[in-house]
């Protein structure tokens, strides 16, 4: 049983995605139940896999029994097991409340919505588990196609946002495929480990540099790395709240995973850092993206849009850690992946709850009445916001700490400055909301609808927000356990 773990992680979700619409024909609610059951099972499998990997080292699975490098290989190593666990756990927590959000915003669409969610998660888990470069492309497109569909069922302009997302995303995937052609032409292989072994013999071929550049650009689009982030703000803003809460925390992270995997484990540290300085390009683009995303977030008047721009900045942190290309920086990047997944999930769940209860998420209309009406929701928002700013002991502080230490190790003080300035900018746009919610008494207290009444979100919608908020604090407090026990095992050769 254990040896089948790598393939079961995406397969459980795919099977559920195919079976759940059939059960949905009998009763609509069955689709949701199967979705939650499958993701819960998947979370269990990923955690089991992570424990196995930590105890016994990496696992490899031969699809159809074909021996790699000819056959496709699924690999569960510390990096992939960690990302798979984050994806499954965050998706599971968000899914607990997703049905209530979907019932509010998309009545009658429950069955297709959750089928698309399962397909998207299949794609994400596949990206993380596969050990084959072409297989990665296929899973990337499975996940992306489902994500386009999830974005497109939102507000009135959402199909436009989804179409732009599709156009940019598919172009990025095509560039990845073209880059892969260069790699395949030079090495004759698509298996990641095999390519990594052959590549050093063709280092001097300029075609490899072109291939690498195309792959980095293609993955940069998927990850929304500045300046390839153009699709993200509209897509996350217009998507239905349940879809934003599912896509925003993990959608860009799988792009980051693919970048880490391909830069450090396929092309190798010596090539991308020492010979070509690809990581330096990633580093500086990310630094610009951090500042740009934070400034744009300040300029937004609507909360989901603000969170979307903040995602551009937060992806920049992950890119910064990758770009530093040293052990501490990589720890910071991987830790920020899990931290940001929890933070963004909590904040988007809160935004969804506010939309359902208040009917809007305009920052200008938030005041103390909102806080009195939804004290627990606002508490979860506060924890998420503090973590985004980087206030200890919340999780956000520690990943920024590792990133800053990594920058100091490289002697890049300007990157420390970028992290500090962006934390201040984060404080500006989050305290703007917190100040309104906690300190500003309602301007229109008289004659308005239930200005002081309790109007908290339903428990099923509140629980995910509170769980995620608790997770943020737990990740912060126990970050040393996570870093020493898991993230430290992610050691690309030569780093």
């Amino acid at each position, binding site marked *: 049983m254990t040896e089948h773990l790598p393939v079961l992680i995406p397969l459980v979700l795919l099977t559920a995605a195919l079976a759940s619409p059939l059960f949905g024909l009998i009763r609509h609610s069955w689709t949701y139940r199967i979705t939650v059951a499958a993701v819960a099972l998947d979370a269990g499998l990923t955690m089991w896999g992570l424990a196995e990997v930590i105890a016994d080292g990496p696992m490899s699975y031969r699809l159809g029994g074909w021996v790699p490098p000819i056959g496709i290989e699924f690999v569960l190593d510390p990096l992939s097991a960690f990302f798979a666990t984050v994806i499954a756990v965050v998706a599971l927590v968000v899914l607990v409340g997703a049905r209530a959000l979907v019932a509010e915003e998309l009545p009658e669409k429950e069955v297709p919505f959750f089928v698309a969610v399962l397909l998207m998660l299949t794609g994400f888990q596949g990206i993380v588990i596969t050990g084959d470069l072409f297989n990665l492309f296929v899973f990337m497109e499975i996940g992306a196609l489902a994500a386009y569909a999830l974005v497109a069922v939102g507000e009135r302009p959402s*199909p436009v946002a989804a*179409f732009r997302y599709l*156009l940019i995303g598919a172009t990025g995937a095509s560039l990845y495929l*073209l880059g892969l*052609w260069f790699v395949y032409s030079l090495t004759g292989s*698509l298996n990641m480990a095999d390519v990594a072994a052959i590549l050093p013999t063709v280092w001097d071929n300029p075609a490899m540099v072109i291939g690498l550049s195309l792959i980095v650009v293609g993955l940069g689009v998927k990850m929304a790395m500045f300046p390839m982030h153009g699709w993200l703000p509209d897509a996350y803003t217009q998507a239905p709240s349940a879809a934003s809460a599912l896509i925003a925390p993990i959608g860009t992270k799988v792009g980051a995973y693919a970048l880490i995997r391909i830069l450090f484990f396929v092309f190798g540290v010596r090539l991308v850092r020492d010979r070509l300085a690809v990581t330096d390009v990633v580093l500086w683009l990310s630094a610009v993206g951090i500042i740009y995303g934070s400034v744009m977030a300040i300029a937004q008047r609507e909360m989901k849009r603000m969170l979307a721009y903040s995602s551009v900045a937060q992806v920049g942190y992950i890119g910064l850690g990758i770009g530093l290309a040293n052990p501490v920086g990589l720890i910071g990047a991987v830790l920020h992946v899990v931290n940001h997944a929890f933070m963004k999930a909590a904040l988007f769940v809160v935004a969804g709850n506010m939309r359902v209860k208040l009917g809007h998420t305009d920052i200008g209309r938030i005041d103390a009445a909102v806080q009195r009406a939804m004290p627990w929701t606002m508490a979860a928002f506060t924890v998420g916001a503090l973590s985004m700013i980087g206030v200890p002991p919340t999780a956000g502080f520690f990943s920024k700490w590792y990133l800053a230490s990594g920058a100091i190790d490289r002697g890049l003080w300007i990157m420390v400055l970028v992290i500090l300035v962006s934390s201040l900018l984060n404080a500006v746009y989050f305290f703007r909301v917190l100040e309104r919610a906690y300190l500003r008494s309602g301007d229109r207290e008289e004659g308005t609808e239930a200005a002081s009444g309790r109007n908290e979100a339903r428990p099923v919608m509140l629980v995910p927000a509170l769980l995620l908020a608790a997770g943020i604090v737990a990740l912060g407090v126990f970050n040393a356990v996570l870093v020493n026990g898991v993230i430290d095992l992610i050691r690309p050769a030569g780093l």
Partner: protein
Amino acid sequence: MGPPMGDFWGGGYAYAATAALLVIGLYAILVKRNLVKKLIGLNILQAAIILTWVATATKPDATVPVLESHSGEHLVEAADYLNPLPHTLMLTAIVVGVATTGVAFALLISIFRRYGTLDEGELLGEMRNGGG
């Protein structure tokens, strides 16, 4: 499998053609204002990349990689056969492209029903005027 880069300009006219297609596709995606034309551009881009892959597999005087019973006499010479892997990979890529196009058409229909136009400029104007 011979790396194609050596004879890029020597015998690889196919690559010049696919490079031209690639640029045409990117141009349409970036510059055209009609969303259908942008989608056509995406399809041209995908076709260019698929053709690039398939062109890699060709060699002079080679045939399909199917072993015939009477070929068992002598050892199988890899040089006599095309590389089948790019073809099979590109079959998958074509399927991915078809699925993407299908989803894109569904989105375009939905956009047209809501706004009555597929012009990017008009759509952005409509969205700004209180589509929010």
